């Protein structure tokens, strides 16, 4: 290269040799801790079939895609309730997550976990969900909108009624 281009090359590379590592390190330093969602009781991780299970209807929640809803619960106290969602195929939610909420909004909602693709997911339902009417809300973080909501009422360790789609 001619001298002027070499000097420009040197200036560019020298500047980026400082800027790039700073951006890289700073970007890593500001990473948030991942939200822990693996809070399922041990009993529900491997042998949920030995417990009381109520299979609810599959309901159409997202763009013609049905989702299977199943609640598992301890037979004996202390009672834990676990919600199992099985999409029939890829939900295509942009950064989809699930909440349990006493109402249709997210104001007092409890975060359940991530909902992506077509794999079955299981979330432990909050203890407040037992014995009161609530809603399962599917939310897209990327698009910042509620995608679907259906009611889920648990009485003790048993789920009652069929969930109704939003």
């Amino acid at each position, binding site marked *: *290269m*001619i*001298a*002027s*281009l*070499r000097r*420009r*090359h*040197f200036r*560019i*590379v020298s500047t*980026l*040799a400082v*800027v*790039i*590592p700073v*951006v*890289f390190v*700073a*970007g*890593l330093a*500001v*990473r*948030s801790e*991942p939200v822990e969602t693996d809070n399922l009781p041990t009993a529900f991780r491997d042998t949920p079939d030995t417990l009381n299970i109520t299979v609810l209807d599959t309901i159409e929640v997202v763009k013609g895609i049905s989702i299977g809803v199943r609640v598992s619960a301890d037979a004996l106290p202390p009672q834990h309730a676990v919600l199992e969602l099985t999409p029939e195929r*890829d939900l*295509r939610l*942009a950064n989809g997550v699930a909440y349990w909420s006493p109402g249709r909004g997210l104001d007092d909602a409890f975060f359940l976990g991530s909902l*992506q*693709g077509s*794999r079955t997911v299981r979330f432990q339902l909050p203890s407040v969900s037992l014995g009161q009417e609530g809603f399962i809300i599917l939310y897209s973080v*990327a*698009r910042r909108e509620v995608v679907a909501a259906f009611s889920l009422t648990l009485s003790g360790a048993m789920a009652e009624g069929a969930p109704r789609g939003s």
Partner: protein
Amino acid sequence: MGHNYGAVGWNRQKKVYDTVVASGVVLYVATFVGINLTLSDPPTIETLLIRAFATAALLLLHVVLCIGPLARLDSRFLPLLYNRRHLGVMTFLLGLAHGVFAIVQFHVPGNVNPFVSVLVSNTRLDSLSQFPFQPLGVAALAILFLMAATSHDFWLANLTAPVWKALHMMVYVAYALLIAHVTLGVLQAETNPFLTIIMGIGLVVVLTLHILAATKERAVDQMALAAGGEGFVDVCAVGDIPEKRARVANVGGERVAVFRYDGKISCVSNVCQHQNGPLGEGKIVDGYITCPWHGYQYCPDTGASPEPFTERIPTFQVTVRNGRVLVDPQPNPPGTPVRPATFDSDHASQLGESP
């Protein structure tokens, strides 16, 4: 080589080169997708393709950036320089594929134009962890597109080598944008340290190679040359120059190449008119100075390319005195014939001058 457009000068070597590169890309993508599909909880095919194209593009960009300094440090890497622009075009194509799949997956389902969405959906400019990383990727892709679109020699000739080279130096800006795109994007949520470590290693390798090459090149520019009388500069001894090879020196702020061949000494600009390649690192082939980068040739005593080619490089007056090569720092206009200085084993001096 004129300023008229000519089709790509395909030859067997280029075809083999491109076939190998394309095959490597296909193999990489297939392997990446295949391995991930064997995992217990694989992502969707679309997600895997997004990741495969992204990692392939980033990996290839690192290779492209390393070729330059490697060639400076060791001439055995020069063959990689020959078709480097083909790798650059492939990098752009892979980045484009990644961008298209990502826009389709994340922005098409919305009610906003997806191309607008990718730029405006995230307005968190006040947060580093949630910074809009996607526009950074778009900006990098735009630079790579500019470079790919002007990679043909047609643009090199019409933009002139210095302008073209300055444009293609933006690859460093694209690299910085991509590092930021990845760091502020996928690395914010990726818990597996593998990608972070690989990125860090790539960054360190690229920067280290550049620093080493710069250090080596700086030694040439800082070489102090003694005055040789009558305005000439003492470059080196005749014996310091191998036969059919050159000695590079910094004379008057620019590098010159002093060639020795058949008992003669000629001095020309070290900068090839094609892509500013280092002529002094080439050799005399069939009586012509041959650039080590792409084989462009110049007559050593006129600085002109053989017909029908029209490239010209500046020449310099040169003389040999007491076995020392002396060069006049004032360059002659490109293509100016200069009688080569001659020498014999007894160090007889003769003056090389324009006829």
